[in-house]
């Protein structure tokens, strides 16, 4: 439980800034694709290297990067049809992942998909903390090119492609590292929901990022407490808490809140 808390707090600091950029670049669907895309990789990793965090994590990262590259390739080749291609990609990935995992004995599908606090052992904690430690400095380095590129998406700057690749790799890393505690289907929730909620509170990039982090940290703590006491998996508990923040923000947030008078 303590390990899960520490790990989730680390991810709560690292993942929401990535989520803010995903939202701003209108790539929310991409996060869905990635979280489903890592599943077959985790399954293959478990089949090849056993049930260790590292084997499954490595498989997940590789699969996530492959899916990200595929998605980028689709986007370039098909132009407008990108959305539907991405949807097709993640449906196939999810089905393949579930099939691969069910074919193996000794893997609990529910735990893998939705997380389990008790599954967080020391290697898993290390993976979560490591991902967070890597994410923050790299994000700081690519912050300016990312900002420029988000502002002018059509402009392929020399460094832009590189920073975009780094960014997607970081997203994959955060999704994969969170799967032990949150589950593959839920770890994106900690990335996206606080970021989406933060849009309703702040008009500046730095403001959105800080609010997203604050919301994610609170959601992690509350969600884990709920999960511990009510005995529901940690992933859904945390994501539901973050979802609650989102609903409140959507209704009452100062920017584009539904219950505020429209200006």
């Amino acid at each position, binding site marked *: 439980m303590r390990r899960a808390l520490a790990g989730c707090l680390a991810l709560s600091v690292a993942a929401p800034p990535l989520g803010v950029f995903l939202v*701003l670049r209108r790539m929310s669907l991409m996060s869905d694709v990635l979280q489903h895309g890592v599943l077959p990789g985790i399954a293959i990793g478990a089949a090849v290297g056993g049930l260790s965090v590292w084997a499954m994590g490595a498989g997940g990262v590789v699969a996530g990067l492959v899916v990200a590259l595929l998605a980028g390739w689709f986007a370039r080749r098909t*132009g407008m049809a990108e959305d539907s291609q991405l949807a097709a990609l993640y449906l196939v990935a999810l089905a393949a992942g579930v099939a691969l995992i069910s074919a193996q004995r000794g893997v609990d599908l529910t735990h893998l998909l939705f997380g389990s606090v008790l599954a967080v052992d020391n290697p898993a904690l290390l993976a979560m903390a490591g991902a967070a430690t890597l994410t923050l400095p790299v994000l700081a*380095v690519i912050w*300016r*090119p990312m*900002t*420029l590129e*988000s*502002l*002018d*998406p*059509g*402009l*392929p700057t*020399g*460094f832009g492609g590189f920073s975009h690749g780094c960014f997607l790799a970081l997203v994959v890393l955060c999704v994969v590292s969170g799967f032990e505690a949150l589950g593959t289907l839920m770890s994106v929730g900690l990335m996206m929901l606080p970021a989406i909620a933060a849009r309703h509170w*702040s*008009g*500046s*990039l730095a*403001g*959105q990022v800080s609010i997203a982090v604050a919301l994610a940290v609170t959601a992690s703590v509350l969600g884990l407490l709920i999960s511990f006491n009510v005995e529901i998996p940690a992933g859904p508990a945390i994501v539901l808490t973050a979802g609650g923040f989102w609903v409140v923000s959507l209704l009452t947030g100062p920017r584009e809140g539904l219950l505020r008078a429209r200006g």
Partner: protein
Amino acid sequence: MLYRNHDQPVVAPPSVRRRRSRFAPRPGRRRFDDGVACRDLGLVMNPPSIRLDHVTLRRGGREVLRDLTGVFRPGSLTAVAGPNGAGKSTLLHALCGLFPLASGRIDRGGLSPRSIALLPQEGRLDRSFPITCRDVVALGWTARVGWFRRIGPEQYAVADRALASVGLDGLGDRSIGALSAGQFQRSLFARTIVRDAPVILLDEPFSAIDTATEADLMAIIHAWHQQGRTVIAVLHDLDLIRAEFPETLLLGAGAWQWGASSDVLAARTIRQARLSATAPPPARVAVEEAA
């Protein structure tokens, strides 16, 4: 008019035109050419010629521009005109190295593509991005300080003066989503001022803005021209080109015309480029542009 460079003797700008322009600074009008554009940033520039040698551009499997040969002279002020889909924007992108040539070559005279400033078409930027106008202008420094070095108070001070010189005094803290189309275009001009590039490319700078803004921005273009920068602008307003731009590159229907505006924009060539009101561009081209 003479400008003093920090480390060079006083030189006359390469092409000071005597003709009085409709938009040139005059008494009583806000004078952009003695604002930030010159004093803080604009030394007199000596950009190299940009030579195009049998340049062919292909986009989406279609040849948009064939066999274009010519020179953008140092300090020249050129308008690029032509119907939609004639390859105007693509040419600008190719000039600053963002679009690969199908064949031919562009000789930038040793100038790195990064020191060519492109002011992108208005609709291409994401106006909903949460960033202040001041930050957008300060990001103009990126081309000069690189991706990682700090944009500090001095750089922000320059950004603020650039904002003032485009008439956006005190609007720096506004988010770009809250600016009008004209104000946003002004802020992009301020960003280009901050970039301080010897060659400036403007992609349809006057679409979706009112006449007063157009006049102010045109004055900035003249200031850049007088500082000796090479300015190339994609424009649709033929009257404006005739009045303000000494040279024109007219693209259309696979062919091109390049020279003095008065020659290029003669009635016959316009008809050939299908620019005139009586002969609208073929529907096929328009559809492809939309796709």
